């Protein structure tokens, strides 16, 4: 397997890769986010956890400038996303939960298009893209239309599209969806490698708590649009009063869904 490319080391910064400061967002009567604050430092992987509908994807879209928060402030690499959305998007790699790709392009055409949008010179594209295609076992499929790809293959294309321009901030919304165990392992290791060696800040949303526990330096737990808790796994255990417990128990306790025996009993009837 060819080695996956690594990003150039960014200048050491004492600042944050991402700073979300008290953002709120409502859709009509529904309050999706309420005074949400968290930060991602360069080289840090922050897990964004929460039940379905907690506001994770809304927060990520706000970070990307796709949604304008009603109140609060978002700074990416020290700058407000609203001041220079295009310039900052060039520094962000985003992998959405359900990637919308141009279905009637081939994988290679799509990645070439994305590389163009990020201003990657044509002569450097092949050397950037090829290792990803090999590493994620997409080689040999790159000339087929994306519409013929499986969910996992689409996810791999979206991952490559989010990584190939070597962003300084990665926003990954359920990035391991549909991936086979080997590809999932490659992606997890790659994300960790980017964070450790290249000082890339990573915001990582997942429902798989084992993955969050294994890969994230800190966790932010959202529920009903508010931050319930944040910190390292140990800090969250302490906060939940469950020292020595697994993250699943901690998560369920913090989100107020610790005792599920009634639910299971009702469903078992």
């Amino acid at each position, binding site marked *: 397997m060819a080695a996956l490319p690594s990003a150039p080391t960014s200048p050491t910064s004492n600042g944050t890769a991402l700073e979300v400061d008290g953002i709120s967002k409502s859709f009509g009567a529904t309050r999706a986010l309420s005074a949400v604050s968290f930060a991602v430092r360069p080289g840090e992987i922050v897990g964004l956890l929460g039940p379905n509908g907690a506001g994770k994807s809304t927060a990520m879209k706000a970070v*990307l400038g796709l949604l304008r928060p009603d109140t609060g402030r978002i700074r990416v690499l020290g700058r407000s996303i609203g001041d220079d959305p295009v310039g900052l998007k060039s520094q962000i790699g*985003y992998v959405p939960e359900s990637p919308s790709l141009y279905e009637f392009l081939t994988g290679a055409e799509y990645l070439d*298009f994305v590389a163009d*949008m990020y201003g990657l010179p044509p002569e450097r594209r092949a050397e950037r893209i090829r290792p990803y295609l090999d590493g994620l076992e997409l080689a040999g499929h790159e*000339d087929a*239309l994306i519409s013929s790809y499986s969910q996992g293959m689409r996810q791999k294309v979206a991952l490559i599209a989010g990584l190939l321009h070597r962003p300084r901030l990665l926003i990954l919304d359920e990035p391991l969806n549909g991936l086979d165990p080997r590809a999932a392992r490659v992606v997890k290791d790659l994300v960790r490698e980017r964070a450790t060696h290249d000082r890339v800040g990573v915001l990582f949303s997942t429902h798989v708590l084992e993955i969050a526990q294994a890969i994230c330096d800190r966790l932010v737990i959202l529920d009903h649009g508010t931050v319930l808790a944040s910190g390292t796994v140990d800090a969250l255990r302490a906060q939940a009063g469950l020292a020595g417990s697994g993250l699943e128990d901690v998560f369920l306790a913090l989100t107020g869904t610790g005792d599920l025996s009634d639910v299971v009993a009702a469903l078992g009837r």
Partner: protein
Amino acid sequence: MDLHKVRRLAGVLVASQLRSGRSTSNPRSLFGQPRILWVADLVLFLAPVALLGQSFLARAPPVATAAAILNGLAPFLPLSAVGVVLVAGTLFELSATARFSGSDAANWLPITPGEYVAGSTSAIAFSYSPAVALLLGIALPFAARLDAWPLYLVCALLSAVALYEGAFLVEMVRAASQRIGAAASGRRGTASFVLRAVVLVLVILAFDLALNPVFLFAAVHGLATLPAITAAIPLLWASQALDAVASGAPFLAAAFALGQLAFVAGLGVLAARLRSRYWAPAPVEVRLAEHVYASPHPWLAALGLSRTESALAAKDLRGLLRRRELLPVLVVPIVLVLLLAIEGGAFGTFGVILWIGWVAGFFGLLVGASSVGQERRGLQLLFALPVTDRDVFRAKTVAALIPVVLGSALMAVAIDTWFRMPPVEIAASLALTVSVAVCLVLWGLVFASRFSDFQERPRPQFVRPGPMLAATGSGIVLLAAIAVPGALAITGPVSAALLPATGAAVAAVAIGTLAHRFARTGFARLFRELPF
């Protein structure tokens, strides 16, 4: 604005469009590459030049004739460019499946709204450029005969600008239809659907009226007598400029041409602002209400459907009013009825009854034919459920019959009353219309169950093109077999009504029975094996 990004985005959108419409989407095929449109432009431009040029060499038309043709054609060209782009673009954009029409794929890339709009409009303009190339090819020999090169060149330039004019308008309609519904009522799905339906009805109606000779004559006459008004309509400035060139008024021509350019630039800015405002799609809002689960469709049960069949039918009925790809199915009959109301005075009672039958039959055929293909790959879920082919057949039949029978009956009564028909004729027309509608729904189901197209396409075709053509052709014959004798029986003398009335009734029963049988066996076949 980064023109390289604009060009690349336009190329991607055109390639997607070209490939998505083809049954075999080989990305390497020339027909899947944007350059095929250059080839089409060239062929469509050169073909009339060659054909007309040859006949000009043999016998050149008199100068006066050539001048009359060119002076008539040139001002029409930019206007037709706007019309073609606006109508085709709006139709396709508004009926496109959500996953293909969204611009999500570009949302997180470093592209400004202006670059996206420029790329998208370039793709739209380029896609419809062959129509303009054809007209310019027709005009060229006449311009050569008259040596009217300034007029020709200005015409070509303004026609190209007009392509963008139409494309910007399409982009604005797309942005507006995405979100105005939400702003209007907060209930995004329904409001947005209604807005799209209204826009679609207006566009098709406008297009029909624009091609209607009687209406055109009145409009041109009106415009000719009101020059001050035409000068105030920006959409006509290109035509005014070409008129001015033809009549040797260069300053007036320059003023109108510059006005046209400024207007189109303004549209571009507006389109980019709308895009910017509605840049991100609104997240889906899920509302959960607490209630005890119970079958919510007692009225479907009252029609004799089981609980399973009721649930399947209710799903389809909801989809008919929510799924944007089904929009044309609903809109086309509305347009046809409106046209009848506008122009129907000249048809006479026989013509009106026949038209109503035609609309009802066509509506029934479309709804019936789209019943199965609309499932797309979701059909796999149906197969996985504990339902039989009989359940699905009965549910699909009822779900198609309810809107068609209700809509047709309402239309028949409203239109007949509008034309002041006596109650007996209204009742007879109502019976005829409903009979036609039921038969054609069943006929549509025959094709839906046997020839559905389950592929994901930007504009779903529900039934494969060849069989759909056969469905339409045979449907018209069957429709005529019931509606013509029926209309004759209603409008003819009472003494001569028995024979055609019997003929219509026999035809309806025979066609309905046969179609029911074929559709039923079609569903049984469909359930033996997944069709993909």
